[in-house]
């Protein structure tokens, strides 16, 4: 292989990206060395098995990926802002929309959600950590290795360019001869294994690690949504694992599962992809519903309306999510009967979703609503998401979909669902739980500024796309002619995208500003909230709760504050915690090398690192690790320090 095939060449922007990657890496290495932080980084973060720190690392990675995916989005909107724009060529545009989709769904939305789950779920159920802390670290590092592998494709070898759905035969070696789609199959596989492990971990955590008295029907709604999401993960991700493995065989080992010859079936890929892909949508949206449920209840000063129907509706959604996949390709020609079936199952999902919308509205009724930043995002979610929901019902109608399919109408719809749904939720959750993790709030004034920019610009960006779709503009078009008349609305959409970018810049600035200037909290419950995670101090001690909570109803903290039902009525006992381990990060590193070698079909390094994976796994199996025990004295000392009492 020649060097100019290895590195992506010929694009000034990519040279810029290469230079910035190299400079940033040097800066990080020099900085860590200069400030003597290598040991700190290794001890406190790289080897940690603490669910809160793993959560923070997930969220930090997600924010970085949000930046990358956002830059992709701005470039796409800029390219299509005017007819016949020459900013990007077709190949570059194709790579950008492919990575935009992959990064935003798999490396931004998912890790952000999983990060919040990591921070919050064990606290909400009164646990000391997740069921399998070290597995949790493996999950994170595998996700991280996958994310880095995909991002590396941008400068080495070329990014995947067949769309995030990578339909065959387009994604086959025959029509996509670069290594881009090899990266796709391996990066998604590695991070997908991590996600699957997370799913299993959280099912066990929520079912087995709840504090005394925390019955299933007393769990906070976010924990419920995490449980259901984890179950969906456990059922959906194996399908992706198999599909990606077959894809890898097709592309690297010359098998013919999805190709055009020797009996390959291109439609099989589409089916497998969406059998995973549609539940995936609910994997990112159900926890979002959980986050909104917590926030709306807290800032309405009222318990969640219709708790039972909220739980039941999520279970129904999770079941239906596996019965709708063919609505992604009504136009494949499977006939009116099959399409009718999938139309009905798809529209049926709107019923439980509608139940949730009404329950949120009625939670606010007779409440005492305060407009904090997290509440503003939750309030904006309801009307905007409803537009996404009703256009979803319109798309579900197979006949009408013959006119919407593959158009900007579809693009508008899923952004109207995923941005107010998932993105607003994770930002709201980020603002809401930030003081829990770090002990100070994000600045409210800047937070609200960012909110208005984001909420209004979002509509300016995506509402025009509904009309572009109905005018016949299809998705993934890198250019269009003047006569099509698509120009003005695309320009408006680009203006909106700039506004969105500005909103996110304010949001990031707010993090910096608040770290410097925000007053530090002295109590663990800054929002006057309702659930257990606010019962411990902020920042949270490693063991979460000094005394194991004793739960007597829903909204345990609210009952403790108002109905005189103490949560901590036990006594302090020694606490057993898992000890740190460097093996998860080493394992992920070896996985990364393995993936990278396979992408380029470098067999010797691939075989060596493949054996390396087995060796690391084997040493893990034979590890004798009894964890650490925190003594009663240490707990008392830590608690005093956290309450600001002098020793």
């Amino acid at each position, binding site marked *: 292989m020649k060097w100019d095939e290895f590195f992506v060449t010929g694009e000034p922007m990519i040279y810029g990206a290469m230079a910035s990657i190299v400079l940033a890496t040097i800066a990080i290495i020099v900085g860590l060395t200069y400030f003597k932080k290598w040991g700190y980084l290794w001890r406190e973060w790289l080897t940690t098995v603490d669910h809160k720190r793993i959560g923070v690392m997930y969220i930090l990675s997600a924010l970085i990926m949000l930046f990358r995916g956002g830059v992709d989005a701005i470039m796409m909107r800029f390219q299509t802002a005017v007819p016949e724009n020459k900013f990007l060529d077709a190949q570059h545009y194709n790579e950008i929309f492919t990575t935009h989709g992959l990064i935003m769904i798999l490396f931004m939305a998912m890790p952000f959600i999983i990060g919040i789950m990591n921070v919050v779920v064990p606290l909400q159920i009164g646990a000391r950590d997740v069921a399998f802390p070290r597995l949790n670290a493996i999950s994170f590092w595998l996700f991280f290795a996958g994310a880095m592998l995909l991002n590396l494709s941008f400068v080495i070898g070329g990014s995947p360019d067949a769309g995030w759905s990578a*339909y065959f*035969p387009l994604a086959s070696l025959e029509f996509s001869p670069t290594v881009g789609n090899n990266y796709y199959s391996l990066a998604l596989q590695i991070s997908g294994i991590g996600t699957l492990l997370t799913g299993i971990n959280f099912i066990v955590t929520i079912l087995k690690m709840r504090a005394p008295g925390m019955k299933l029907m007393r769990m906070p709604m976010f924990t419920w949504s995490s449980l259901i999401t984890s179950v969906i993960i456990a059922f959906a991700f194996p399908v992706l694992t198999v599909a990606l493995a077959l894809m890898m065989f097709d592309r690297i080992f010359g098998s013919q599962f999805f190709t055009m010859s020797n009996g390959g*079936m291109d439609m099989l890929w589409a089916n497998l992809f969406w059998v995973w892909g549609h539940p995936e949508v609910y994997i990112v949206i159900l926890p979002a519903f959980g986050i909104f449920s917590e926030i709306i209840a807290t800032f309405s000063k009222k318990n969640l309306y*219709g708790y039972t129907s909220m739980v039941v509706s999520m279970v129904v959604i999770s079941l239906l999510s596996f019965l709708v996949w063919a609505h992604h390709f009504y136009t494949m*020609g499977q006939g009116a009967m099959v399409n009718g079936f999938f139309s009905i199952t798809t529209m049926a999902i709107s019923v439980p979703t509608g139940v949730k919308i009404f329950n949120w509205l009625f939670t606010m009724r007779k409440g005492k609503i305060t407009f904090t930043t997290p509440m503003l995002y939750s309030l904006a979610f309801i009307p905007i998401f409803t537009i996404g929901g009703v256009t979803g019902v319109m798309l579900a109608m197979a*006949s009408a979909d013959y006119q919407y399919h*593959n158009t900007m109408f579809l693009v508008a719809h899923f952004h109207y669902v995923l941005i107010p749904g998932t993105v607003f939720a994770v930002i709201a959750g980020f603002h809401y739980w930030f003081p829990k993790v770090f002990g100070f709030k994000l600045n409210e004034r800047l937070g609200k500024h960012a909110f208005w920019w984001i909420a209004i610009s979002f509509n300016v960006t995506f509402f025009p796309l509904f009309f572009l779709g109905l005018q016949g503009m299809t998705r993934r078009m890198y250019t269009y002619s003047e006569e099509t008349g698509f120009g003005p609305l695309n320009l408006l959409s680009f203006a909106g995208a700039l506004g969105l970018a500005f909103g996110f810049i304010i949001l990031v600035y707010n993090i910096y500003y608040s770290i410097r200037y925000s007053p530090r909290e002295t109590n663990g419950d800054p929002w006057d909230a309702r659930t257990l995670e606010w019962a411990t101090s902020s920042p949270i001690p490693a063991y979460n709760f000094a005394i194991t909570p004793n739960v007597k109803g829903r909204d345990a903290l609210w009952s403790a504050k108002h109905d005189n039902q103490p949560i901590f009525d036990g006594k302090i006992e020694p606490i057993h915690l898992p000890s740190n381990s460097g093996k998860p990060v080493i394992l992920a590193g070896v996985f990364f090398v393995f993936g990278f070698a396979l992408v380029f079909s470098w067999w010797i390094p691939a075989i060596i690192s493949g054996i390396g994976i087995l060796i690391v796994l084997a040493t893990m199996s034979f590890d004798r690790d009894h964890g650490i025990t925190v003594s009663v004295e240490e707990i008392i000392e830590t608690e005093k320090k956290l309450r600001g009492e002098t020793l």
Partner: protein
Amino acid sequence: MKKRGSLLVLFMSLVLLLSGCSSITVLDPKGPAARTLSDTILFSIAMMAGVLLVVYVLYVVFLVKYRGSKTKDDYMPPHEEGNKWLEAIWITIPIIIVAVLSVVTVQSTSTVEKVAAGYEDQKPLVVYASSSNWKWHFSYPEEGIETVNYLNIPVNRPIELRLYSFGPITSLWIPQLAGQKYAMSDMVNTLNLVADEQGSYLGRNSNFSGQGTAHMEFETLAMSPGAYSEWVEEVKTTASALDETEFKSLLATSYVGRKTFSSTHLTFSPAPGDHSDHMKHTDMENGNKEHQENKAEHPVPANPEETKFDAVPNVNPNEPLPQSPAEDSNSDIDHTSHDGK
């Protein structure tokens, strides 16, 4: 919260605007299939506007009425578990809405899959529409002519487009005449449409198929039957025939302009698993059948005489064995080799 109110007004006015607007392609149909779809879309928008209205009214009322700044400081919101009557209402009404929309969907879907009402007794004009890297081939077996990147059709006559692809999945879409359908390499999909107004309608590939997707546009010209016959005659007399060598080089070229030929590629490169005679007797309303199912029944014919198209006029029994068009030019673009060749 002024923004929400204005959003609502905006949406409602857009709905009103949509129903009378003709600049919106999808809602400006020029044939029965597209008209059915346009009506379905407008009906669903009206229904959904009702849903939005209910949600937005409740939302605005609750937000205005129960904001913390308006309530007394000592007001303690009540504890509410839920209300089974209210919950029954917001489960029942959506179910009714979904039921209504389901009926509309199933009806309209089977309507547009079939030949349009009133045109059933006319013999449809069969046109094979196949895509190869970033161009469209339209073969008229009945007339024995072929075009590239443009489609001429007579008005008021049912057109049966048979779609397939020489490569990645594409989707043929002429929004003013009918909804889209995929063209794939290993089966033939059928798209029924009728143009009931003369005019030029833009068609395109809507499914991403690689670098040139954005350029896969073609003009559909719906002309009077007389003008159509004249055009066919003219093509037959003036255009050159399409032979296998030329077709192969055509397939290998990424972008070409319009081209016209006085013979079709179907004679030497039949559509995948073609079983057009048989199809009429199956119960598949939209006329497509899994290619895999038919492989045993309908192996690719050993010689072209066995290939039965609808009235293929110019099959030459002395021609060599049917060969995939791209076997030489592009080693693997071969939609017949999976039959074990």
